[in-house]
């Protein structure tokens, strides 16, 4: 490293010599007199005032940016209560679904051709009915959306847009039928395993009811 600097110094040696030989500049003769006069008269000019002053603009400019960023963060970011994953919501609804199996109803109305699984009255997420031949007849998922404002994403991408979807902004809504969500949602078909599970549940209930009936008949017999 040293040699590099020395080599470079040698390269500039002529110029360095000339720089060293430049004529020395001296202060004017009255320099000291003027200086002492200024000091005696306490005429310090700008020097006295040139103490470091707290620069408000330099301080406020970045702090204003930071404060604005924080405020925007609070305004724009939704709180944890507001964050509801529609998919999660749907799954929860499905889990909480209870199949109405009133024993009286089951005794009187549970017939072979009325093998309907009812949803909880509060449940608005999905309606499904199982036909006697145990095939799903109607699968119309009731999503927590205002249907008039919902957009089929696949159709939208494939170009199959309809005028209803394009005029979403014009939909006037009133009453209590409010849509809890207004965002993109990927509609999924009901899971086959879930359906099987419910079907098995219904079957077991039916069998239990039949057993109970047969037991009652046996008890009634003299």
């Amino acid at each position: 490293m040293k040699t590099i600097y020395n080599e470079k110094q040698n390269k500039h040696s002529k110029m360095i010599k000339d720089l060293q030989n430049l004529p020395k500049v001296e202060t004017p003769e009255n320099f000291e007199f003027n200086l002492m006069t200024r000091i005696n008269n306490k005429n310090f000019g700008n020097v006295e005032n040139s103490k470091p002053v707290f620069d408000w603009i330099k301080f406020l400019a970045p702090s204003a940016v930071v404060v604005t960023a924080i405020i925007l963060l609070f305004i724009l970011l939704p709180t944890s209560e507001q964050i509801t994953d529609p998919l999660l919501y749907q799954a929860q609804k499905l889990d909480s679904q209870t199949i109405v199996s009133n024993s009286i109803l089951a005794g009187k109305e549970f017939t072979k051709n009325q093998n309907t699984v009812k949803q909880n009255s509060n449940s608005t997420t999905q309606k499904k009915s199982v036909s006697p031949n145990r095939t799903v007849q109607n699968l119309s998922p009731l999503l927590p959306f205002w249907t008039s404002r919902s957009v089929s994403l696949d159709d939208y991408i494939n170009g199959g847009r309809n005028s209803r979807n394009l005029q979403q902004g014009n939909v006037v809504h009133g009453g209590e039928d409010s849509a809890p969500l207004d965002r993109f949602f990927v509609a999924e078909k009901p899971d086959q395993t879930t359906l099987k599970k419910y079907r098995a549940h219904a079957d077991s209930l039916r069998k239990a009811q039949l057993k109970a009936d047969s037991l009652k008949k046996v008890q009634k017999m003299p």
Partner: protein
Amino acid sequence: MNKLLTELKDEELIKEFQDSNTLEAYEILVKRYKDPLMNFVYRFVGDRDICTDIVQDTMIKFYLNKDSYRSFAKFSTWIYTIAGNLAKNELKRRRRRVIFSISNSDDERTPQIEDKMFRSPEKLTDGKIRNEIIEKALLKVKPVYREVVILRDIQDLSYDEISEITGLAIGTVKSRINRGRSQLQKLLKHIYKE
């Protein structure tokens, strides 16, 4: 007493000025440093009147802020730092003035190096003209490089002292000196043909 004071080192003199507010100690220090500072500032700024003002302001700053000097530092580096900062402020002020003044032409703003093509070789060997050209070229070197080149090659200060004055690491000082010298050599290529 006065004779005794003149024999004191810079650091001892400022200690005397700090402790007893002895104005003679201050005056001796002013006498010792006014010319080296003038030379340094003149090479840096390039205007004699402005340089005189800067050196005066440096001395007044030294007078007003004598207590801010700490004995572990060399007095010379401390006073050079003050002068250097004032000189840099002056350059900044000048640059601002240049930005805001539309009417000023480029010729008025920066000192121009005369076209050496029109000078005969005899003239170029003439010391006075040669010095003039070097002075003007030096003012064209970037201020960050110019400062260290002046301190090293004109004021003959050590790398350690320059490092202390500028607040830069020694490695940075050395590289800046070399860059400054290279810039200057480029500007003076007609004089220093390799």
